[in-house]
């Protein structure tokens, strides 16, 4: 195995990133905070998972977060993006993931939440994001990950769910949002994670997809999401975790990717951006740190490539303490 010399690649400004996250979570009246109000639950997941990977989850008031989050739950069982918002699969997964971080999944009425999720499966096996019917393989992934974490996969028709995902497979081995849609790294992560969790990875042509994924690495060492597009730190997660799940991560140049991610840090004020020199945000901070964890950057907790939660959290759920 190739032992990487991480000291040559640059430094991760851990303390600055922790401070960045704790500050933005408190600033409820900044313009960005106000405008992102309706997806606060996603923001909580990105922020808290990053803190856990950096070993600083204990700096947050767990009870305050959980109590706020439970108020985001709708009577249908689903969670909205913030208090008073309509339920949607996306925020339901984030809620389950945050509760998993705090080992508080038992705060949920698990059957109620699972019924909400299962109720969104369509006849062709696909999932709608909510009652309004938007269909996308992102929602297949979110539904499957949620139910797997709740240990209620039996509430859906798994075979049909898998078949729908497979129908979104393209000639390049990748996956799009719906059948025929262009392969895109984000959608690929969603489909591969869903297939991994349901024991269906044999449907993936790992060599073909692995090649498509490793072709995402561009000269700067960063990864793009589609051919001829610009690199972005978030693809350090989506491409990388997909490669790991299909056991092909050795096909990229890990060292160059680590250097790219570290170059996207704001070492003065904390936070990570999509590309070097751009403005930082919590979304890219999470993906940068999670990507570095997958690349085994020292000092970070290991993260599960399918569930996007620390490995010790996932083990706690499936194997007990």
């Amino acid at each position, binding site marked *: 195995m190739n032992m990487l010399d991480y000291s040559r690649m640059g430094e991760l400004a851990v303390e600055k990133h922790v401070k960045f996250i704790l500050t933005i979570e408190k600033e409820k009246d900044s313009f960005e905070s106000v405008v992102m109000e309706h997806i606060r639950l996603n923001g909580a997941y990105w922020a808290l998972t990053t803190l856990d990977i950096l070993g600083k989850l204990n700096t947050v008031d767990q009870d305050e977060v959980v109590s706020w989050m439970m108020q985001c739950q709708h009577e249908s069982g689903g969670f909205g993006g913030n208090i008073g918002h*309509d339920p949607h699969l996306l925020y339901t997964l984030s809620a389950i993931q945050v509760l998993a971080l705090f080992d508080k999944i038992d705060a949920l009425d698990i059957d109620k939440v699972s019924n909400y999720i299962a109720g969104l499966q369509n006849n062709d096996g696909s999932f709608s994001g909510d009652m309004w019917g938007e269909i996308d393989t992102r929602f297949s992934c979110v539904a499957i990950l949620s139910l797997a974490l709740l240990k209620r996969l039996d509430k859906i028709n798994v075979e049909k769910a898998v078949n729908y995902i497979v129908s979104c497979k393209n*000639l390049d081995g990748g996956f799009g949002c719906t059948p025929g849609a262009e392969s895109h790294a984000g959608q690929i992560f969603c489909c591969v994670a869903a297939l991994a969790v349901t024991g269906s990875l044999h449907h993936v042509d790992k060599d073909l997809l692995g090649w498509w994924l490793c072709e995402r690495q561009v000269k700067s060492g960063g990864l793009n999401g589609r051919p001829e597009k610009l690199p972005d730190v978030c693809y350090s997660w989506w491409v990388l975790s997909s490669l790991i799940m299909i056991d092909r991560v050795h096909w990229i140049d890990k060292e160059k990717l680590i250097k790219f991610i570290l170059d996207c840090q704001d070492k003065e004020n904390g936070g990570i951006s999509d590309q070097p020199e751009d403005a930082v945000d919590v979304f890219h901070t999470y993906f940068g740190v999670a990507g570095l964890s997958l690349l085994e950057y020292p000092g970070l907790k290991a993260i599960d490539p399918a569930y996007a939660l620390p490995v010790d959290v996932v083990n706690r759920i499936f194997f007990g303490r």
Partner: protein
Amino acid sequence: MDVLQKSSERIPLSQRPEYADVKPVPQDDGPNPIVPISYTDEFRETMDYFRAIYVADERSLRALQLTTEAIKLNPGNYTVWQFRRLVLEALNADMNKELDFVDGIVEGNSKNYQIWHHRRWVAENLGTDASTRELEFTKTILSKDAKHYHAWSHRQWVLQALGGWKDELTYCELLLKDDIFNNSAWNQRYFVVTRSPLLGGLGAMRESEVTCTVNAIMEHPENESPWRYLRGLYRNDTHALVKDPQVASVCLKILTAKNNYVHALSMLLDLLCHGFQPSLEIRNAVYGLSDSGAQGSDLVKVVCSILELVDPMRANYWKWRRNIVPAQAAQCLKDDGLTGLSL
């Protein structure tokens, strides 16, 4: 959105007579400190009034107006969009006017999932009559960003649900003329060729498509997309890929030109692992690219050594291919022997 400019023209909701009986409901997720910036005041007031109408489930014209204002301030708020749909249904609103509304919002917000989902809902309500307008709408978005994922997704939905396939292949050709590297256009081309009810399907189209693709490859051999498209044309029929003289020929031309030959070498590996018997010219073209003067050596080994050198980021991938291609080629010959197929 230029909210600051609008602030001077906007009349606060608290001063509008038509909302006089509405009691605004503040956001309940923390203390409410003093906010000095005026645009945040406008945002807060609008959302507080929206919340009141939403909680009361009032589906009226003034409710519709409130969703319009809330959306303009923050188009990402999916709860507002959903409530707007309920109001539109209750009012039996004019869906064409609603398309006009989305037209107005989309500039500057085109990467927003809610807008596209709303658009689809409206178009679905209008049915096949909306096909032409929706194709025009996506065309406009794509003219500014030809790889716009939401626009392509919407366009594919429109074609399949509402029709309008007639000019789609021509449209793909135009986009590729503009930018031969546009992977989305190549994807759409495959979509049309394989799914259009007006064309003959992949079998009927393959020959002409291969010719177009080979021309694109010759223009820019470093272009990833046409190489993948070429493989796609021969999906489930790799024997035909191996036998097609156009494929071997384009590889030879590029290798001989000694420029941007990575994808050509990669294609050669694919051909070899499916039983391709390379000509002397191809062998010599490959040896000509190698420093080590590897005449007579195992062709697969030479190809992979070159690739490891010129594409070092993916060195491990090429090493893996070096090991596996000979085994795949041997298996292929064995299978052909069993079926009596000869190349």
